[in-house]
């Protein structure tokens, strides 16, 4: 990372950014590796990630609705921030296995992971986690701000040669409308799916006793 900054020519911020992102993702994965985790918990996680990836196909005929972000947030609220990060980043990674890895991949992973992490941090095991309106507003805003801005940084690093505040603003503004739609639909979806999903998780928790440690 420092090598690419110092030795090569200026304007190699992409490589530097990707190195920073990879370095910041690694601790979460180490945490996941080292934790004593039950088989049923691993499987539930995989199921949630699979649902995040596949839910796009189910809801495909309603335009502009992508439940991925909402499902990640719900998982994070139910299972905590670290699991939320893991679910978010892996679901982005795996959906890119299908569509082909692009230059966006690390940025999407970090963005979605952070959305999960932040929402998990705010709502996990908190008394106001059942407040539909709070969850949907906070979820929509984090989706819009965190995910949108991080992914737009990638287009900024790719498209622009001049790293000034002005040119950054231009890129972020052009992505704004799309991010806004994404954020709002996520908020609306969260409003509707939060309660039923929490019920389903609680049912699993009671019926099979998984994730009782957290």
């Amino acid at each position: 990372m420092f090598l690419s900054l110092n030795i090569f020519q200026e304007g190699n911020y992409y490589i530097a950014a990707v190195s920073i992102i990879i370095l910041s993702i690694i601790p979460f994965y180490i945490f996941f590796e080292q934790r004593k985790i039950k088989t049923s918990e691993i499987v539930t996680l995989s199921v949630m990630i699979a649902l995040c990836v596949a839910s796009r196909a189910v809801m495909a005929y309603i335009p502009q609705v992508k439940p991925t972000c909402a499902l990640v947030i719900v998982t994070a609220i139910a299972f905590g921030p670290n699991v939320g990060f893991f679910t978010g980043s892996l679901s982005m990674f795996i959906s890119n296995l299908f569509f082909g890895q692009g230059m966006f991949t690390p940025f999407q992973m970090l963005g979605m992971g952070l959305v999960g992490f932040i929402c998990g941090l705010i709502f996990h095991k908190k008394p106001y986690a059942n407040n539909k309106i709070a969850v949907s507003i906070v979820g929509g805003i984090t989706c819009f701000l965190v995910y949108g801005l991080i992914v737009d940084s990638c287009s900024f690093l790719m498209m622009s040669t001049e790293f000034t505040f002005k040119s950054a603003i231009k890129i972020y503004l052009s992505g704004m409308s799309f991010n806004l739609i994404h954020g709002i639909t996520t908020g609306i979806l969260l409003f509707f799916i939060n309660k039923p999903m929490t019920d389903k998780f609680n049912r699993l928790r009671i019926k099979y006793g998984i994730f009782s440690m957290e």
Partner: protein
Amino acid sequence: MQLGFKSVHPISAFAFFVFAFVLSMTASHPLLLAVSFITGLIYDIKLSGKKAVSFFLKIIMPMICLITFFNGIFSHYGVTVLFKMPSGNNFTLEALVFGFVFSIRTASALLWLNSFNEIITNDKFIFLFGRISPKTALVISMVLRFIPLVRSQSEEIKKAEKGVGNLPTEKDFIGKIRHGARRLSVLISWTLEKGIDSSDSMKARGYGLHGRTSFNSYSFSVKDALFLLFSLIASGIFFFVGTKYKSNYNPVIDIPMPDILATLLITVIAFVLLLPTLYDLREERKWSISK
């Protein structure tokens, strides 16, 4: 049995692509850029044929033109003023050239990424990272299995809804949303339960016990070692050439002229970048002779 570069051990292939990608993203000397761009294009066309050509014409070419053009318009650094724009800003040669360099960089990285997606398939990816983090690899492979399952189950639910007579009509928008939500809800419940089932079955078969090995069908042979070695050597050479013959475009265009040594080294890099293509061609020839 896969032929050519596809049959090379994942570690070697991955090392090669990391080298190619970093080279195309960080090279500043025009010769190096040309080398990475042209070899990347050749290999992409070799791998995907017509698809690669149309990708080049429809995406890469417009992208190069656009980035160059917009950098010329929006950036005003540099000393060589070509003309003044109506807005009063300078249109400089440096901005134009650096825009072009930058776009070539991005374009060759994209081309190599295309080949990467062809060569490093999902199973190889899991093989590569499964060693470092077994749990994550397990989750990934389970997710990859669950996705088709979820899709087919979703179709089943749709059929069942149709049988009951619950399918929404074409124009009924609210009904569509309701139907989608119900389908999603049924799907989630079903998949979660199914997941618990499979975890029970995993436990019954002894998952989590010590001494688990994993199956893989890759063996590390001489050719893989050679590929790895070549990639490493070429990275070293690139590190040397890239720092010594560093080119600047801002504020003045300053490109060091390559001497004999540099030309030789860049030829070596070009050769290494062409290796997959050459290897594929050789295998194909062997195959046609043996037929």
